[in-house]
């Protein structure tokens, strides 16, 4: 598998991965806001969000019809729909595409559910790899607490209840998410994950992410035609200023 840059796409794809409750959605949202405000061409896509497939997925989840194999296939269908109709055309048009979860979610989750790893990887081998992947590494208890703060109960599949690990949803969630972390960490080197300490404050994480993005991508290339680069030295699309901005945030944090 190659990245979009290695496949000669003019666009670049940034993905975030991590456990539920690791704060990755907040971080990618803030990254998106920054890039948009800088006047860049940005598109955001979320795991399991294709309109067409969503109805079937939610029916399957609600009625607990899904087995590990169909769970895997229906998510692959959702991914393929977004990939072929949105991601690829936008990346061809030179967009910065931000993905809340990418193929690694399937690589980790489906394997924990018992699908053969080679089969799952084979399913997704039509897709190019992200140019940058941020992995949010949080303590289990922190993730669990974040999810519970947002809503009173854990969801059935989120807690891995279908795996019959434990009859107690909290215990099941701990075991399930623990196995997910193992899978993610095992992939970390192979897929060049940029590991972010998700136990840190939101601002601190975001500063680091912005710094890395500005360092690794030539952001000027993604400027919208109707949003010319501002005059003067304030554009954060240049590495130096992004760095100083990042550092400034850090100062206010501490």
């Amino acid at each position, binding site marked *: 598998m190659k990245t979009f840059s290695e496949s000669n796409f003019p666009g670049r794809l940034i993905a975030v991965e991590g456990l539920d409750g690791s704060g990755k959605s907040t971080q990618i949202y803030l990254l998106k806001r920054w890039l948009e405000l800088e006047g860049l061409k940005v598109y955001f896509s979320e795991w399991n969000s294709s309109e*067409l*497939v969503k*109805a*079937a997925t939610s*029916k*399957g989840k609600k009625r607990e*019809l*899904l*087995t*590990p*194999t*169909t769970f895997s*296939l*229906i998510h*692959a*269908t959702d991914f*393929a*729909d977004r*990939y*072929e*109709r949105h991601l690829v055309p936008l990346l061809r048009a030179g967009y910065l595409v931000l993905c809340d979860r990418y193929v690694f979610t399937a690589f980790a989750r489906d394997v924990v559910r*018992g*699908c*053969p790893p*080679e*089969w799952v990887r*084979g*399913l997704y*081998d*039509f897709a190019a790899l992200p140019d940058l992947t941020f992995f949010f590494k949080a303590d289990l208890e922190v993730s669990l607490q974040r999810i519970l703060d947002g809503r009173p109960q854990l969801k059935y599949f989120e807690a891995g209840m279908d795996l019959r690990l434990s009859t107690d949803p909290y215990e099941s969630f701990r075991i399930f998410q623990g196995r997910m972390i193992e899978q993610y960490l095992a992939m970390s080197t192979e897929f060049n994950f940029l590991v972010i300490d998700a136990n840190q404050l939101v601002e601190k994480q975001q500063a680091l992410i912005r710094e890395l993005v500005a360092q690794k991508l030539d952001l000027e290339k993604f400027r919208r035609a109707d949003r010319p680069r501002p005059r003067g030295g304030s554009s954060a699309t240049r590495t130096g200023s992004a760095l100083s901005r990042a550092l400034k945030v850090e100062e206010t944090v501490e």
Partner: protein
Amino acid sequence: MRRPAQNHIVVPRRTPRRFYGHGIPKVELERLAGRLIVVEGADGSGRSTQIAMLVEWLEGCGHATTQVGLKRSTLVSEELARAQQGNILSRTTLSLFYATDFADQLENIILPALKAGFVVLADRYIYTLMVRDMVRGMDEAWLKNLYGIALEPDAVFYLNVDPEELVQRSFAKNAALDYWESGMDLGLSRDMFDSFMQYQILMEKAFRRLQVTYGFTIVDGMRSAEEINQELRKKIGAVLAGK
């Protein structure tokens, strides 16, 4: 139809089973006592007629049967039909959607029925799905991995009917050609009739390519329904006897 006396019920012999690839996790193959019989062929090739006749015969012989087919899963059949109406899915998506439909039926109908010792009659199986994708340029290795979940059937019959005859049958039934069965999405020709003929020839070629790997029986579908059924019964009889 000649029916054997009750005391001549053939108890199917166990034969080794396998998945084509990785298969479905945690399935105990040796517990699948039933038989899986697949009938493949284009629309209008007589699949449903043959299956209906086989059910009569099998039940008469004392075998419990169950039937599966494409786009019949509880999980995604409605959504799949809706998506197809608008022709808005791109090829990988459609392919995976069909695979989901297949997997749902495999796990919830086919495998439990085989475990219970039923004869499962499948009105099309993974081959139609693979062939459709192959003529649309999908990677064969990718398809083989995807359908590595499938159980190898005990017998696969491909009803071969000339495209000219398929057209006649389709008109006799509906006075129209189906958009997908004419391969209109491929842009082979704007003329639906031309497209249908070209598409059916492509499909048959792809089936013959798969036949080399999957070794199914090509049945001459140009004969009378009764003649064809006799051939199928003879071959299925041998399968049940474990030959």
